[in-house]
């Protein structure tokens, strides 16, 4: 069952940029692409945990700031020759607000 949580306004994230949401499972990076799509993935690169939210966003991908792995925002998969994957989360925009599906993020985090 989804549990849509209103996170912020779309405009709180710059186009081709990202901001993070803190969760008890660690930071989730929320990306906004140049054409205003949003994606949510874990903020830790599959290579050596680089903060993906600080990478350069191009198309539907982000380049990790530490060693330039390129991660597909939709699938969470590393692109090109690199192998690895980060978790992705359901997210959508409605009336200019960003809604994140908290079902996995909250459910697994019961203290």
């Amino acid at each position: 069952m989804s549990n849509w949580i209103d996170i912020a306004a779309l405009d709180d994230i710059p186009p081709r940029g990202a901001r993070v949401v803190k969760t008890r499972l660690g930071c989730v990076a929320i990306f906004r692409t140049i054409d205003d799509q949003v994606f949510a993935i874990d903020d830790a690169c599959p290579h050596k945990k680089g903060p993906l939210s600080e990478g350069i966003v191009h198309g539907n991908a982000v380049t990790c700031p530490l060693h330039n792995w390129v991660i597909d925002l939709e699938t969470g998969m590393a692109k090109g020759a690199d192998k690895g994957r980060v978790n992705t989360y359901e997210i959508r925009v409605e009336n200019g607000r960003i809604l994140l599906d908290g079902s996995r993020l909250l459910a697994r985090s019961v203290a």
Partner: protein
Amino acid sequence: MSQKLVVIGAGMASGKMLEELFELDASAYDVTLFGAEPRGNYNRIMLSPVLSGEKAYEDIITHDANWYRGHGVNCRFNEAVIKIDRKQKRVISAGGVTNYDKLVIATGSASFFIPVEGNDLPGVIRFRDLDDVEAMLVAAKKPAGKVVIIGGGLLGLEAAAALNEQGMKVTVLHLMGHLMERQLDSAAGYLLQKELESRGIRIICNAHTNAIVGGDKVEAVLLDDQSTHLADIVVMAAGIRPEVRLGIESGLHTERGIVVDDTMQTSDPDILAVGECVEHDDTVYGLVAPLYDMAKVLARTLLGEAAAFKAPEVSTKLKVTGVDLFSVGDFGEDHEEIVFRDPGLGVYKRITLNNNRIVGLVMYGDTSDSSWFFDKLKSAEDISDIRGALIYGSAAQGIDPLTAVAAMPETAEICGCNGVCKGTIVAAINGGATDLAAIKAVTKASASCGSCTGLVEQVLAATLGDDFVAPAAAGICGCTDLTHEDIRQIIKSRGLKSMPAAMQEMGWKTSCGCHVCRPALNYYMIAEYPLDYADDLQSRFVNERNHANIQKDGTYSVMPRMWGGMTTPDELRAIADAADKYNVPAVHVTGGQRIDLLGVKREDLPAMWADLNAAGMVSGHAYSKGVRTVKTCVGTDFCRFGTQDSTGLGITLEKILWGSWTPHKVKLGVSGCPRNCAEATCKDVGIICVDSGYEVSVAGAAGMELKQTVALAKASTEQEVIDLTVAFIQLYRESAAYLDRPYKWVAKVGIAWVIEQVVDDAVNRAALCERFEISQSVYRKDPWAEQAKPEYQPRKWAALADLTLEAAQ
């Protein structure tokens, strides 16, 4: 006996619905048609050509008096329905009470008036019906009339183009970063803006309207940035809202629109609704194609036939003469994209694909194949087999590119920039120019924007056959075939001042570049247009975006400037205090004569900077492709061998140079005597003080390669040293490839050329210094102070949200 059907709203949807109804069964209903406008149904979308003068109102009438009479429609135009009385099944209008068996609400939309002071002044006009058009045309009659249009979407731009045709001075204020952002990406938005601007229309994006000002009528629009835009009329084209008042007041289920099911029935079985005023499946519509589908369904529902509305794909075109633009679909789920740009012709096409199916399409400049693509999108056809040539459209299908090129006539133009046709290239090849470089030199083909390089190579391959050797790609990344040198040259010659402009005009193969090309483009435009180009933070590597060096665990290092390597007890105390306060795990004395605080948490950065700022310190830019440090020795102040004030000169230089962005990092050293304790001879610029003055040398390094500096010039005064240094750095800024350190750049251009530019030509030296100073008027600022401001906190440094406290459900 026929039933009584009352229709509220004589617009495009109800007109279509009545046509369908009468065609299916002309006698089922007695129809009464209310319309608030003093006229019957007409083709509202053609109001734009009426406004521009291309059409007259008579040309766009869809239903005339004869038609209504012939179908026995009781027309009640110029009479708005004020109330629906559902209990008694009747509607109330100025003319009295009218009973219905079935009621259709087709009230369309109302223009959205942005909520600012003065939005109700006389002269603020919406763009919705013929009365609005007539009001605008009255204003257009006045010579040199000025209009400000609020909203750069479909409606606003059609009004802009039309009123421009009518001779008005038009300004468009658009809230978002590019025009028609709902339908277009930034590349197409850029082309559209360029086209409209070339017609004399002023366009301001990111324009936040603050107020509309005037006395008894509008006089001007005021923006948040305090700029004022004079206006005889203001056209409000900032969006539309479904006209749902009757729905709400009569208690029908209404969200954004009046909610209908698949049969167009509202929450009351005797009331139906159609058009822009309805909401179906969480969606409201603003274009006619889906409304016509609704109208067909509604006619059947009224006759008791089964029919269901299914949301169609909706495409957009702009009805501005001379602008070819097409957009459709969802950019929401694309995996991949194919981009085609022809800068010479101003063409841009972008297809987005999901699972080998077209899901989105933007075309600008050439829309001839739009329906071919649109069909493939609607039918969800698998395009894997034709993917290679897909972007070239229907004509290219089944033809391999080489055959196509071979079949081209000799007169076909290959290079748009230089007007070179195929025959000329073939002649050059036959004359011995057998590679790209030779063809460039002989014919100039592909020598300007380079976007025809692929075509030229195909002509080569087709002409030479097996003798053709494909060259290795020279592009700086997968997004372009251009070299750094080409890119700099084109940015300069074409006056490119934004990312979308650069990518379109140079034929980028992706829609928004990548981590390799974007930082380079950003640098080149900063260097070329410091006053006009807005630094694009999203195109910067993390260190330069966050003004700190990222560490392997995601923390940062903070390094304040110590001018010329000098410090004071107070500065050292402030650094020590910051280290304590923010639990800095490591403090290191660097090789650049200053102190590095390592392992700082991201969220502590702004507060730590504010503390260091308070102690008079600024960013050391240890993270930048920019001026880093000026190392000095103690010189004449203390050293018994010192010949000149090396420390003072170093500090002066650092204060002039700091903050500037360069292709790669730049470090300086100033030593007080040839013993060279500041290691000046392995820096990008090294100055050795001697008895007779100063020796300035350049292009050294001590990193991955060890390079000793080479002599630039001798100088006798400090001012000369400063001018030589600044001019050298500016020349480097203006002509080096991004990420070439000065020693690499000098190796390419030759030290002789550098000396010619900087030393021998005094006029040029002064000009270089002046251009550097212009750039520094923008960039000689402490980025820490800027980003530590409280307003930056919520926008950048704080988390977007904190769910750690949120309860599980």
